[in-house]
């Protein structure tokens, strides 16, 4: 649905040129919920804005449903209004001088793809019903809460029956509770309508929850592309691993295939074809705490040095060796006062992340 070839975007800055995107290749399938994930300044929003046509790239090509909408070489630039898109913005960008209904209707009555007059009302009300905002149709939008405004923005972008729906950090202006609610709504509505979505976020839980596919970006490049489970279990680099969730790091030496010597002890893990110094990553979720030794593989003793009560979980800091402290999330049995107690950490060999040391 979206095909991007060698897209290049530069910004003129005070002392020269800043290359936001050196050369991006990307392919989004029809009906896919595609997430661009990355820290701020990674170029993900720039990429989205280039697809929207709000920013103009300096080179490369963008196809939208097999239609060439941008080409540096062929000097093609289709204006944003002619691309047939829908977009949801971080700031909602609902027009504050209009009602909910008028916001959704304006693109249908004054946009490039117009709808017969007698159809407008049905379309608007249907789009509003998708996000449960139909009963607020006549409210002026400034009277709505942030979550409601963002739902209006979603309805507006769906009502134009977009080729692709673009979403630029739509949840980051909402508070934590609303975020989950609107996130759920985005997922159900987009799946129901079957629209192709390109979604930008810096929040890994959003990306993992929403994306059919995720592209992790850093410094204007796509570092890794895959499904949420692929990314989580097999992050291509330590940076991706850290970006998708907390990781405890261990330095080690490959003793033989599948065996790594670490300050904690001898660890069994898939070393693939790595030799010499490695970096070993263990997610808190891959560590199981045992009150007593069971003698299982990859089980090491440690001392609880700090505990932080998080409500449903408890976060423990465990000293595994001199200079090695693990962060572990513990469930029910470990609630209570455990300070200075000894525990045993069992680590799942299959979930170990192994990288060459640098």
């Amino acid at each position: 649905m979206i095909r991007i070839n060698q897209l290049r975007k530069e910004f003129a800055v005070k002392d020269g040129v800043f290359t936001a995107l050196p050369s991006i290749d990307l392919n989004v399938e029809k009906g896919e919920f595609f997430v661009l994930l990355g820290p701020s300044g990674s170029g993900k929003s720039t990429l989205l804005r280039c697809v929207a046509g709000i920013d103009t790239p300096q080179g490369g090509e963008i196809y939208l449903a097999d239609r060439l909408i941008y080409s540096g070489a062929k000097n093609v630039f289709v204006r944003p209004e002619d691309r047939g898109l829908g977009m949801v913005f971080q700031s909602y960008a609902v027009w504050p001088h209009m009602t909910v209904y008028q916001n959704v209707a304006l693109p249908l009555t004054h946009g490039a793809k117009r709808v017969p007059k007698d159809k407008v009302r049905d379309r608007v009300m249907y789009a509003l019903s998708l996000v449960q905002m139909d009963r607020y149709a006549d409210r002026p939008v400034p009277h709505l809460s942030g979550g409601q405004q963002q739902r209006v923005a979603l309805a507006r972008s769906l009502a134009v029956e977009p080729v692709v729906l673009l979403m630029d950090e739509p949840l980051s202006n909402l508070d934590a509770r609303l975020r989950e609610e609107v996130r759920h709504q985005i997922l159900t509505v987009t799946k129901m309508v079957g629209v192709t979505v390109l979604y930008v976020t810096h929040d890994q839980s959003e990306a993992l929850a929403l994306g059919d596919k995720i592209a992790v970006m850093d410094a204007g490049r796509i570092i890794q592309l895959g499904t949420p489970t692929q990314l989580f279990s097999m992050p291509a680099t330590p940076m991706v691993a850290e970006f998708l969730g907390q990781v405890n790091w261990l330095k080690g030496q490959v003793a033989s295939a599948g065996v790594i010597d670490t300050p904690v002890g001898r660890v069994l893990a898939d070393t693939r074809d790595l030799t010499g110094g490695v970096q070993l990553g263990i997610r808190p979720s891959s560590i199981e705490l045992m009150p007593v030794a069971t003698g299982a593989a990859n089980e090491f003793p440690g001392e609880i040095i700090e505990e932080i009560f998080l409500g449903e979980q408890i976060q423990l800091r465990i000293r595994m060796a001199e200079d090695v402290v693990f962060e572990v999330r513990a469930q029910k049995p470990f609630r209570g006062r455990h300070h200075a107690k000894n525990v045993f950490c069992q680590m799942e060999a299959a979930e170990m992340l192994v990288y060459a040391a640098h």
Partner: protein
Amino acid sequence: MVAPFVAGKDATVVSSATGHWPIVRHLNGRPFVFFLAALPLVIVLILLGVIIDVSVVDNINSGLSTSFTLRHFKTLLGDPLIYSSLVNTVEFTVVTVITAMSIGGSVAWLVERTDLPGKRLVYVIMTVGLLVPTFFMAMGWVFFLHPRIGMFNRWMMDLFSLDSAPVSIANVVGMGWVEGLGLASMAFMMTSPIFKALNPSLEEASTVHGLRRWQTLRYVVLPLIWPALLATAIYISVIAFAAFEVPAIIGLGNRIFTFATVVYVKIAPDTGIPNYGFVGAVSVVLIVLSAFLSWWYFRVIRLSHRYGVIQGRGYRPKLVPLGNKMWLCWSGLGLYFLMSKLMPLTMMIWASLLPYFQPFSVEALSQISLANFTVIDWGLVWRGARNTLTLVFWVPTLSLMFGLAISWIVVRSNLRGRFLYDWISFLPHAVPSLIFAVAAVIFALFILPKTVPFYGTVSILLMVFVLVRISLVTRVLNGALLQINRELEDAAYVSGIRTLATLWKVIVPLLLPAILNLWIWNALLSYRELTVAAFMVTQDNITLPVVVWGLWNGGLAGQSAAVSLVFVVLLIPLVAAYWALRTGADFQQTPRA
């Protein structure tokens, strides 16, 4: 509920905004906006080019292709009138700035930083002040303080048996005083945000650490607001430097010239033909000096932003309790109102009722009649009123249309040359408006083909009126546009709405308060505009202020006063509309003239 729609489906699309006619596509898109923005700016550059050209060619009467010469500048240097008028202009400017800043600044401080009661009334006095035409006030002061006929002087001479008038308005200081009274309103509006924005915690920090009130003022407050005050003073001096109305009303009859009136007598001489080359040379000097003031203004403005004194909203500045001094302050305000509004109005009414001007007396009362009103050439007044009202409608409308296009390009587009748009749109402020008037006359007379009837039409007035308004309109709209989140506009494009439709359906409604305010403000300024019109009118395109000016200049003070009263009466509905619209609005949004 209707059937669910399918994403990407095009079945229900009935029309595309591109349409079948290519012209519609162009009108609908950015090229039209770029054209709209470029048109007035190109004319600005052409007119400035004309003035510079005129100053260096031998004889404009024989066309553009004549030979290069510096003869006009040599004449200029040898003309004693130029030196005396330069001295006069500088002195006039200094007196104006001192008067305007000390009145406007004190009132602003009273309103923003003290517990003065009746602040709303002060706003009314100060904002309405900007709408009372300066020429009206100047005429009132002539009737009051003229060395020969001035009412005050006559009283004093009778009372104390003096041989000559004790005070006279007919000198440079007097002119500066009147101009300063007029510009005090603007000084007020420009300085009150400065006092309002100063973070009171900076003062409190100084007080807490043991500095006395005057020390706080000297070491904390003044250093912080000094650049902003200086910038305001320079801004006002730009206006005063090229002011025409007061020097014309008071100075011209008494042979006291400033640059503006020198240009006037050279382009509209009582005898002989206009010396355009000389006018061009004076204009170039005037442009250079004004441009220097504007450059200085920008330098100082940048300095004033450096401190970032503006700390946002959400705090209430601590107000200085006035106590009994409140009465003193209100007496001062009352005196200002009397001198700038009431006294001139009274003088004008009195003058309009008498065959020749004389002080109040039983004898004078017996001569009161409406004779002045009956002998007026009402045909001329009617023509002037019609032309003026045409301008009052079209000038704000067109200048807003052009201004919006320019501001949109400057603030929103990613056009490479957008800074040029910004820069050129500021020129009509940096360059005195009378220069554009003179240039337009020369352009219409000598450069346009003789077959194009442009000179002496309302259209030529309209063109220059709009051009000189562009700076103000774009400054205000730039600020207003910056307040509107860019994503609101992007959202419109991405959902398929084109540039013009986006401007009309999204940007204009959001800017509506600013646009309405600017429209009325510009309508009022166009209504009272004398300077530009005085340089350009003929019998056909005469405006109401020029009728007043013409009668005054011709020595018919009584008739002139009568017409100016008609003028003021017609002003009332406009001011009322302005006031109605402003009710509840923040008065500080009032744009600077």
